[in-house]
């Protein structure tokens, strides 16, 4: 049982860090603001939740995991809201989503998506 929990939590931690890393690379490499916010906020939600869940599994029942769950709830609420606010503010300030009319269509997909979120 202990071992299973450990393995599960390690798995969560590793996957969480992987997603965070993906998000970080995306944040650095994507061409414009909206694609960046797309990569950052999506992977952020998943990665942060996975890492926190992994830690909860390590902590067991008690005040510690209650606090972790609090952080989880909070980051889910606040993170998404903050990225929404950022995207909205950027759009309002006249920042145009990156239009890929010269390049192929496949990389244009994610570029136009985040403006909906």
């Amino acid at each position, binding site marked *: 049982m202990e071992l299973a929990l450990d393995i599960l939590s390690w798995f969560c931690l590793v996957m969480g860090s992987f997603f965070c890393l993906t998000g970080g690379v995306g944040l650095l490499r994507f061409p414009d603001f909206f694609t960046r916010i797309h990569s950052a906020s999506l992977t952020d939600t998943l990665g942060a939740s996975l890492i926190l869940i992994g830690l909860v599994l390590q902590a067991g029942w008690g005040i510690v995991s209650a606090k972790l769950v609090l952080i989880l709830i*909070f980051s889910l*609420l*606040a993170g998404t*809201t903050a990225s*929404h*606010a950022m995207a909205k503010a950027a759009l309002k300030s006249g920042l145009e989503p990156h239009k890929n009319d010269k390049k192929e269509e496949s990389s244009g997909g994610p570029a136009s998506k985040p403006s909906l979120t």
Partner: protein
Amino acid sequence: MTAIAVLRMRDLFAVVMLSGIYSLLSASLFLDLDAVDVAFTEAAVGAGISTLLMLASLKLVGRFENKSRYRPGLALGIVLVTGALLVYGTLDMPHFGLAEAPVHLHVAPRYINDSMAEIGVPNIVTSILASYRGYDTLGETLVIFTAGIGVMSLLLVSRQTKEEYYKKVPADMQQQIILRVVVKILLPLILLFALYVQFHGDYGPGGGFQAGVIFAAGIILYTMLFGLGNSQRLFKRRTMELLTATGVLIYAGVGVACMFMGGNFLDYSVLRHDPVHGQHLGILLVELGVGITVAAVMIVIFFKFTWRTVKHRYK
């Protein structure tokens, strides 16, 4: 990790954002160095309040540094010489993390070994802060109070401007619905958490200073989203100004009460029959005083800055 700071002297606005990052980083460094309470304070103060204040004043003075006329030569020379001297001075210092360093040999062992018996509070930082060095903390609270008064008197705003604002405000506040809903959900949590930090300070990291700042941050969040008008209706100017003084008065009053009960100033042991209980009560009250003052001063300062921007906008 700290080398980040080097890169921070670029352009003006981004500097404020980066200083936010900088204080986040320095707080994690504090945590790494076992200074939990300090990390707590730095997190709440450096990353939150000071960034917001910087932003508010940038709003007032314009965000671009219009000239980049530096005098690098002379300044760099002075800096390098001073730095070299300081590094030379460190050569005699005790090594990092050494338990036999002179700092750890004087009063610290007494605090660590005896505070549990004398004060009965597991968090040594709290017991030193509120009890052993109570005078000191009273002084700090007074400094904060004085700074609050200073800002108040420097950034006065006439009632006329405020009425002007109230007349115009309903027009530009009907946006950001999602944000407002989420903040409505989160705000009670934030305030509750501030209270938790306030009263849990005896057992874990936390205490009056941190709780005050968090509380103020919550109120500032509310102000930013729901407008000055609403929050001024909730937190009247007079009330806040009275509260800043009330905190200090509670602190000093506890001290005077100790004197009346036959002890020294700020000697809480006499407050109850059992000295340890007395210490508990005293620390709780004193931290409450600190919390009230800090929260009220931060809120007042923020309000003043924001009113100032309002004044500029409607002039």
